[in-house]
């Protein structure tokens, strides 16, 4: 339990991870990463069910995002894992051990709150040291060790020299770094972050994302974070669990979730998509003059077409192409976002490479589009 400074233990960290840490300061010590299993957990609040029989496996050492709109139950799930709330049914296991009703203090969990939740009357160093200071005498490191640990964590979150400040003297981003350091100080077996960057501006959010990635690589601790920002989830996480209305719709790597959405909700929530309602018959989705392949579905359906899969027809009136009127074009780096209106009045967004977009006629002219791929889901 006692921590030995100057002996950074990197056991359990892959070679790749060790390389990515590069010049970063010595990481905190590691324990074998923890696996979390959530089994058919149910939780409801007075007005509405927050989680309906949710199951989730978190692999040891992975960085998993809980992604969903507000009210989807993602924060509730995180709080159940942390021991800040308790489920009505189901179980939560850490490495197979049932911790469903264990108190937060017993779980070895580091929790980072959206609003930082720092102790305002303490200095930054006292905040970080808190989790060590409150330990039982036998488990408590000596003051010198605690001090060294605080210094090391301040370095890890790049706040060296600010240990004497009060939280009120720090910016939002700095406060969240302190909260992160404080959570890491107790050498948690799981790090849980509830919308950690939600209250920060875009620039700070970007840099803290990289920071979290780096710290995760350096510590190797199993990490879950809650977000409603799909960019954040896709950029940061090893795997993403998409939640909607108290259920997990899909768990997968960012590319799996994006390329092969498991439900209409995931297709619409993760990444951009044009949405068309129609019906499937004989393996073909029809909506107005739109046709898309759709295997294994019959009846009412909804199709999602990603803007980058829309193509310009090789020639006007080509087989299977759709007539449209070109609308606004917005050049955005190497890509150009375009809007068009189909002959039946529906709007379509699509993305072309800058070079292709240069060949487009001015807005208001006729163009021909082809949809060769879409995600089609039956409507219940």
């Amino acid at each position, binding site marked *: 339990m006692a921590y030995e400074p100057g002996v950074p233990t990197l056991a359990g960290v892959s070679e790749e991870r060790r390389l990515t840490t590069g010049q970063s300061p010595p990481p905190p010590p590691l324990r074998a990463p923890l696996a979390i299993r959530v089994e058919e957990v149910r939780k409801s609040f007075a007005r509405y069910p927050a989680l309906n029989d949710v199951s989730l496996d978190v692999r040891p050492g992975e960085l998993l995002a809980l992604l969903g709109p507000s009210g989807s139950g993602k924060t509730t799930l995180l709080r159940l894992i942390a021991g*800040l709330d308790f489920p009505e049914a189901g179980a939560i296991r850490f490495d197979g051990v049932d911790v469903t009703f264990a108190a937060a203090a017993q779980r070895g969990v580091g929790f980072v*709150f959206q609003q930082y939740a720092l102790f*305002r009357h303490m200095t930054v160093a006292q905040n970080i040291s*808190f989790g060590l200071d*409150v330990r039982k005498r036998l488990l408590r490191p000596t003051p010198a060790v605690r001090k060294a640990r605080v210094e090391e964590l301040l370095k890890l979150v790049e706040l060296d020299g600010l240990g004497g400040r009060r939280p009120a003297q720090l910016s939002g981003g700095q406060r969240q770094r302190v909260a992160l350091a404080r959570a890491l100080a107790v050498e948690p077996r799981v790090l849980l972050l509830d919308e950690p960057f939600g209250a920060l501006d875009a620039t700070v959010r970007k840099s803290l994302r990289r920071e979290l990635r780096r710290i995760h690589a350096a510590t190797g601790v199993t990490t879950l974070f809650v977000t409603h920002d799909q960019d954040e989830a896709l950029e940061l996480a090893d795997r993403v669990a998409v939640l909607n209305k108290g259920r997990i719709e899909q768990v997968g790597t960012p590319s799996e979730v994006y390329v092969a959405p498991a439900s209409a909700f995931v297709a619409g929530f993760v990444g951009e998509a044009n949405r068309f309602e129609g019906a499937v018959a004989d393996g073909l989705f029809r909506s107005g003059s739109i046709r898309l392949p759709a295997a294994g579905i019959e009846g009412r359906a909804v199709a999602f077409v990603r803007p980058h899969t829309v193509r310009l027809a090789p020639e006007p009136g080509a087989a299977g192409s759709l007539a449209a009127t070109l609308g606004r074009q917005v050049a955005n780096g190497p890509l150009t976002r375009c809007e068009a209106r189909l002959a039946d009045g529906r709007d379509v967004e699509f993305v072309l490479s800058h070079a292709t977009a240069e060949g487009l006629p001015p807005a208001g002219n006729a163009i021909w589009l082809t949809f060769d791929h879409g995600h089609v889901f039956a409507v219940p």
Partner: protein
Amino acid sequence: MATATADRGRPWRRRSAVPGLGLTLGVTVSILSLVVLIPLAAVAARGLSLSPESFARVAFSQRAVHAYLLSLGTALIAAVINALLGVLTAWVLVRNRFPGRRLLDSLVDLPFALPTAVAGISLATLYGPNGWLGAPLARAGITFANNAGGIIIALTFIGLPFVVRTVEPVLRDLAADVEEASASLGATRLQTLIRVVAPSLAPAWITGFALAFARGVGEYGSVIFIAGNMPYRSEITPLLITIELEQFDYAAASAIALVMLGLSFALLLIVNTGQAWMRRSTEA
């Protein structure tokens, strides 16, 4: 620099987005003078009209010194009791939902509204030698007549709402996530209370304590019915002042009042300075 030029000749005046400093400060100072400062100055003037020897003889007579110590001592003890009881009451009112909470909430304010004489008579009836509680307690050898005990009970009754009402809003605003953070870092419930909750409450808590103490020092009505008012034993300063007034010895009454005023002011100043220091160290 432009501001400095515009305000030349009025260096104390800063440009501010908050309007009406001159007007509000003027009204405040006028009313404060009429209601507080001038009457207090009159007390001082009256008291100091005595020659130094007779001032010392009147204001520091053995009887008067006993009264000061009794008043300050009982007010202090009652304020400490109130600080503990008050925080507990506020905690229950803020954190718990139970039938009758609203009723309890209103009951807390009752000592504010009740004429203090009514409170004194009820307490005397209850705790007096023949009272419902006083009689059995007297048989057990505990009495509240003619000693400081009765005074402390009266002052506790009078001062409780001050602590409850100052602590309550702070407790309500105390974010739950701070306590959750403490728990998730491994702190026990008691450690969270002592290390996280109490320091956040401290400024309001001290204010409530100071208010309850100040009220206790000046309290008259509720105390005289229960205290027995024996000189050298259970005679509080406000009563001594009243006795001097009844004998038309206004100068003596003012002299005693002046000493009491000075002592209370000094104590409140210490408490408030300590509190300001604490607040600075939290928010700076």
